[in-house]
């Protein structure tokens, strides 16, 4: 079997779905690997390194046409779909909610689609969970970036030149990214507070030594997959009001609230921003899926009343090295879990929860309920 790996369409995305440390695994199983030349540039790994490990450097087109499975970190163009033969498999992160057209095309061309975003959130599948692995790093980067934008230091320092107060960091939305943001900010010595609509999160916040802000919103909840349910309008209003008090005293606010498959909830309004201290930083981690913060723009720092509203796309790509390593491991783990060495093929066993969730298109059919 031949597997190919291509670069992201987005040139600012430095991540690679191949990483030297994981490539050996696949090759040892008798899988051939071809990759788009320059795939490792963003992580300072030259083609030669991959070639030395036994992979082959080819053109992008050749990646599409010559492999049974094509690994991609981003959606592909329509004309590229055409290059892929029927019965082949496209595997990667293609943001299916935003690219429903692509799904249709793939169906039409009888190309299977494995969407890594749809790996279910169960313990067993965590090793393939790209959303977790990338959100985790994104949470780290969010803190590093916002602390570098803050005009004061994060930790408390009692010095001869006076006591420098520790920064107050408020993390809204405590999923994987939020937790890592909390952990990183705590490490840097900030006072950290956090809020989430899901109750279970309180203990998790405390398990990192941070403070959970209690806001009673009445009945909230989470789906069986561990994702948050959408709030009612009243609940959202109440949350905003009580949150704004915490925002006022914070130096850094990091919002991570997302709703799987729907636009992110708007949880910080301009009115809150106006009450915040000048010089403080608001980093909107949900900026790409609609934004939690009013006025946040992708890859821009908008200054409103002295408050920096920061939107950075693809935070994980800022630590492309680790991000690629994690990503390529996730891909590998999926492949190795379902690769059958005898038939030299993938076992598409729809009894398996992971297959049934992550394989969106199979045999020219959309398999996932949400896209039917």
């Amino acid at each position: 079997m031949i597997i190919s790996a291509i670069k992201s369409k987005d040139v600012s995305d430095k991540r690679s779905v191949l990483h030297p440390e994981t490539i050996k695994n696949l090759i040892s199983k008798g899988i051939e690997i071809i990759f788009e030349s320059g795939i490792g540039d963003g992580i300072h790994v030259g083609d030669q390194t991959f070639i030395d490990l036994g992979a082959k450097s080819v053109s992008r087109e050749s990646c599409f046409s010559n492999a049974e499975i094509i690994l991609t970190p981003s959606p592909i163009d329509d004309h590229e779909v055409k290059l892929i033969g029927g019965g082949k498999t496209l595997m990667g992160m293609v943001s299916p909610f935003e690219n429903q057209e692509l799904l249709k095309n793939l169906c039409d061309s009888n190309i299977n689609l494995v969407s890594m975003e749809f790996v279910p959130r169960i313990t067993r599948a965590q090793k393939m969970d790209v959303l977790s692995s990338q959100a985790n790093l994104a949470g780290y980067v969010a803190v590093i970036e916002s602390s570098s934008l803050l005009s004061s230091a994060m930790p408390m320092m009692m010095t001869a030149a006076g006591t420098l107060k520790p920064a107050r960091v408020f993390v809204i939305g405590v999923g994987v990214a939020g937790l890592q943001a909390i952990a990183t900010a705590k490490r840097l010595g900030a006072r950290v507070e956090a809020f989430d609509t899901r109750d279970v999160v309180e203990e998790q916040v405390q398990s990192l030594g941070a403070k959970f802000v209690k806001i009673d919103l009445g009945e909230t909840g989470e789906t069986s997959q561990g994702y948050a349910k959408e709030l009612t309008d009243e609940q959202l209003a109440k949350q905003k009001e009580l949150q704004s008090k915490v925002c006022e005293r914070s130096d850094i606010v990091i919002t991570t609230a997302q709703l799987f498959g729907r636009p992110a909830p708007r949880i910080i309004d301009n009115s809150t921003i106006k009450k915040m201290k000048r010089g403080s930083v608001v980093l909107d981690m949900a900026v790409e899926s609609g934004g939690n913060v009013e006025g946040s723009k992708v890859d821009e720092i908008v200054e409103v009343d002295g408050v920096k509203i920061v939107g950075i796309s693809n935070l994980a790509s800022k630590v492309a090295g680790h991000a690629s390593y994690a990503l390529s491991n996730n891909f590998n783990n999926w492949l190795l879990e379902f690769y059958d060495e005898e038939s030299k093929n993938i076992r598409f066993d729809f009894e398996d929860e992971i297959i049934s969730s992550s394989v969106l298109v199979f045999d020219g059919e959309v398999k996932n309920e949400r896209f039917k």
Partner: protein
Amino acid sequence: MENFDITLLQNIAYIFAAILFITGIKMLGKEVTAQKGNVISAIGMFIAIIVTAINIVNPFVVLGGILLGAFIGSVIAVKVKMTSIPEMVALFNGFGGLATFFIAWSEMSNTNDNLFQYLLVILTIYIGGVTFSGSLIAFGKLSERLKIGKGHLLTNLFISIFYISLVSILVMLVLPMIGSLPLNFEIIFYVYLALVMLGGVGFVLPIGGGDMPVVISLLNSLSGIAAAFAGLILVNNVLIVAGSLVGASGLILTIIMAKAMNRTIGNILFVGYAASAASSSSEQGEVKPINAEDAFLILENASSVLIVPGYGMAVAQAQHVVRELGELLEENGTDVKYGIHPVAGRMPGHMNVLLAEANVSYDLLAEPDDVNPMMDTVDVAIVIGANDVVNPSATEEPGSPIYGMPILEVANARTVFVLKRSMSSGFAGVQNPLFFKENTRMLFGDAKESISGLVSEFKD
């Protein structure tokens, strides 16, 4: 005068023997001095026996008895397999009880006009007799020769006899005051002797095998009390001192032993193993709890320890004490590693954040792939608030929701301590068969407190 001097000598020797017994018992309670303590108490016994034997009644009977007893006792003691020592202790104890039983019986004839003496004799016969037959039953149960337990018909019969025997004491005590007897007293007396012996059977029969050590300790305490009573009967100080020492310290030891098993004595005697069975969950088998003290004793002797932290360590914020425990173990010459499962906790790298905060060196952290192959060389794996990541179902039970996930295979370590607050499940919500394995001990409680407990045991 001659005779007088011997009594004086004897009595001084008795005082000395008593001091040796006291010292011996005290030393037996500490690991480093225990063996010496036993020797010291043996010397006390030797002295007491020798000075008593100076003016014996009938050398043949006395020497014959001693030699015979010494022979039998020594052979048993030396030949017995290490594993069957507990039942031997029960047996020896029973014989001691039997001896006091005989002493009291023999002294029955001297009680004619002394009510107090009579009273003592009746009681001593009872205690000695029950100790004997009870110990025999304990011996039978421990050596698995006797398989009758609670609920069996015979058991219920003997229990009734036990209650009757208790009543019979009262009868015997009141009897002499009534005056004229309907029956020959001798016959009544023999019936009493028989009741006593059977009563002891009824006392021990319903108690579960696992609780036997505690019962033996209690019987041991009883035989001490019997000896002390015999001392009162014979007006012999050393019997009183030695007997009541054993009676009292034996009682304390019984309580300590019961506590170590998380039981009360009342619970053991009257509720039996029913209670412990109730606490274990259905089919999975029995859970074996352990306390910090015993866990410490095991850890102290371990030469390699693997610490497996999980979400519970984070919730308890126990990372600092965990590091301290690790350091103490290392100081003790133990090889310590931390087994970090990739999904332990609730976020990627959760354990790393905490352990780094607590200053655990990165070099001590190991992944499952590193530790699993050498798990069988690990003496103790300490699982701290982890659950899913050490769940053998993931490798053994194809139906399990976590089947297929690589885990830290702590079950292969010689001993596993699992520190958690209850039997509740982890994130994945599945029961963990690890907890029911033979070599697993549960240390229940908040992880931070449990570890602190271990740490302070180390510092004692």
